């Protein structure tokens, strides 16, 4: 599913959006710590039944009913191409507001566990290092160094680029591909 990933930014970090000092919600993915600006977070909910939606990128887990509103849920592990792990008791969904073409939309982000809300000062933030073409650091705002721990501060807007997610049209599961093929056979 490489077509859903952005092209690696070879020139390193060129984004003008630098991490700002302030409150961050930190969460865990595998053994890494990430942070999202607290102002983007709407709420944190426990894991609930997620309804799969066909023909979506693999990292779109599906949709949930958030008090009468249907919102999509993104599996951040899958989005970052990390090892897939069974959901645990600690797994939870962080609902964030993301800017899109038609105003802000709420999107759920499935993470391993939420950690804490941290106040990060400007001097504790460093620019994301460049790794060359291997790792895409485009959606990293900066790196927070608090005591000895390192928190990766995410530009959640970039991570959940709505225009990318909605490219579902191009993403067809292998099985439905065969169905389409079948339909073509029929009409041939």
């Amino acid at each position, binding site marked *: 599913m490489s077509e859903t990933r952005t092209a690696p930014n070879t020139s390193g970090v060129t984004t003008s959006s630098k991490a700002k000092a302030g409150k961050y919600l930190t969460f865990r993915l595998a053994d890494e710590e990430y942070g999202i600006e607290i102002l983007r977070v709407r709420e944190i909910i426990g894991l609930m039944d997620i309804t799969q939606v066909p023909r979506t990128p693999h990292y779109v887990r599906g949709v949930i009913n958030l*008090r*009468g*509103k249907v919102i999509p849920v993104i599996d951040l592990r899958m989005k970052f191409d990390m090892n897939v792990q069974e959901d645990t008791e600690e797994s939870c969904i962080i609902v964030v507001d993301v800017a899109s073409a*038609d105003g802000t939309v709420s999107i759920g982000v499935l993470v391993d566990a939420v950690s804490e809300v941290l106040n990060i000062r400007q001097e504790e933030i460093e620019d994301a290092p460049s790794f060359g073409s291997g790792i895409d650091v485009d959606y990293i705002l900066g790196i927070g160094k608090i005591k000895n721990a390192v928190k990766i501060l995410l530009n959640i807007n970039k991570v959940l680029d709505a225009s990318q997610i909605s490219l579902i049209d191009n993403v067809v599961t292998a099985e439905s591909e065969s169905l389409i093929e079948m339909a073509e056979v*029929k*009409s041939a």
Partner: protein
Amino acid sequence: MDGLQEQIELVATDLVLVSSDDVPALAAIHDKFQGIAQTINDEGSRLYQAARCCANLVEKLILNDVEGRSAFLSILSNSVMAMQEVIRDKRDFSEVHFPEELWSGVMQEHASTKDESPLARNAEESGEIKSEEAESFIIDVQNSDSSLLGEFITEAREHCATAEQMLMDIETGQDPESAINAIFRSFHTIKGAAGFLDLKPILVLAHESETLLDLARKGDISIEGRRADMVFDSIDRLRELLKETENSLNERKTIDVTGSVISILHRLKETIAGKDSLEDSAIDITNPKRLGELLVDEGVLEIGALEDLLAQQMQTDPKEKLGTLLTKTQTAPAKKVAQALRHQKDQAREMTAGGMVREVVKVDTERLDRLIDTIGELVIAESMVGQDDHILALDLPHISRNISHLNKVTRELQEMGMAMRLVPMRATFQKLKRAVRDLAKKADKNLKLVVSGEDTEVDRGIAEQISDPLVHMVRNSVDHGIETPEERIKKGKPVEGEIRISAYHKGGNIYFDIEDDGRGLDKERILAKAREKDLIDTNKEMTDRDIYNLIFLPGFSTASQVTDISGRGVGMDVVKRNIESMRGCWDIESNPGKGTKFSLRLPLTLAVIDGMLVDVENEKFIIPTLSVVESLQLSPDLIYTIKNRAEMINLRGELLPLIRINRLFGLSNGKKDCNEGTVVVVQDLNKKIGLVIDRLLGQRQTVIKSLGSLFSRQKWVSGGAILSNGNIGLILDVSGIIALAGSEESEGYFNLKAGIENDISREKGRIHSEVTS
């Protein structure tokens, strides 16, 4: 010279900031122009003259209620710009272009020494048409408050609707005076707000329309025929401008509407200017005759006496009120006249109030939707508590009583929530009346529209979405259904054609009937056309209904000639698509020579869907009941395969493509297809396919939810439904899935199926020969 330059720069800045009705600021500018003239202090210099002319212009702006004030400002700024060029850039006066109007404006002022006679004013106005041509109309909302603008747009639209309705009332012969006043007020309010928000195109247009209406208000002209059309056009153009403003607001860009505004302004001004030539006898009865009528009705006045008086009034002074004349000539006692006048006023008040005295609160639709969402959640939470095994196991009378009370309250709340989304059809029908009026004029047909059920309340979404299909269908009736007056006379029908539209509730659905007494649908011609366009299988037996349904196919039109209104073959397929998107269905009845009746049936609300809940690999899906034909148990001997992949089911001799939902949605996890389960046969138009599912769970009414913009390109899923346990079930988009089976939608519905059937027969033949050999 430096002092002079500074003065000019100052005036230039002031001019940029000033609004044309800000008198103190204008006064300051006036002083500055005079100051410039004083500084130059050389009466022979052209620059001095220019400054004086500018000062005069400003004075005119301050003193006179001149038309097209904003045009004056642009003349002024152009003049100042020219002055700047002379002084700052040290250019010769002859090289610099001063606006012509600067000089002519002064000439005009001298010529028309404050003559307030309409003719002089017209001359002035037509002089201004020129000046306005030179300027451009641009919608620029970059610096405006978007929430204020949004409110303005909504409000202005309402005003447009009111004005339109009032205009229709005038046409149907209701009291024109109060209606004209109402229209005038609407335009006036729009004008005021547009001025405040600096929306020049809207301001100017509203202003000119207001001028026209003001003449009507004074009784100088009547709003009839061409003038009524003019006002209709102005309303339309205003709507367009509002739309443009909205676009500009959304996309944050400026939009140039100069062309459209200038053309309508031109026409408006011509209409205003041409008032004398258009005057006819019908005009003067607008205002006075009503009073006369009242007096005649009350027996105070004889008709003959009234007519004499009216003639007298025409001769002496058409502007004098009948009331004054009556008392003057002592034809009627003053007291009676006063009574009648009061009566008239009361009537006018009643008319404008129009029985719509219900108080309303405007609520943001988003907030309303959120409230309804929350109520929906409450219902789910309530049922979860009410059906909880542990609570039920308690078996305590007071708990079950409380729960049933809770249940009752939530249901009530839910109903109220649903009712909040309802709006009466009145506004939509209003639009139709307008459309019929315009269409009938264009097509040169004599017809009337009879509307019933204007107060039928429908879901807001439906009211909005049904409007286009209804207009299309009415258009169709006007153009194809209703015959020309000559034809009608020949057939012995009343000359005036009739189109009836009604809306009513029946059995949890809303029905719309569109009926005309025209020539009816011509079955033979429809069939011939369909064959000609290769849309149908020539040998197939077709019921009347099947044949009528052909008109909903894209590219289908029986009209022998393409008219301005219809006959291009688009339209009815749009109707079909619109109605289907609202999960509605339709029925056509037609009697040759007698007329056609379209009945539309729509669900009460778009928020709830009637669906078949099915289970596939433990995922829940909903198939809209409307498209379900039947369901049957799947068994291996019913299935045929093509090339071992494509599957068909033999349904009583009819072969249908079979689609497995688990495969389609990637739920099978690599399991082999089993030949057990249930097939749900679904239909879209004339195409049927079988969907293989695991289990039918029954029929449910579920709240429908959009999946949001992220999934807007989903073709097989039309939305999500909140199930009774709070989870989401996907609603299958049957037409999307059927289209997949066809793979090439544009091929047309019938060709393809024929193709498939050919394939199958060949395949069957092959199987057969294998078996026999």
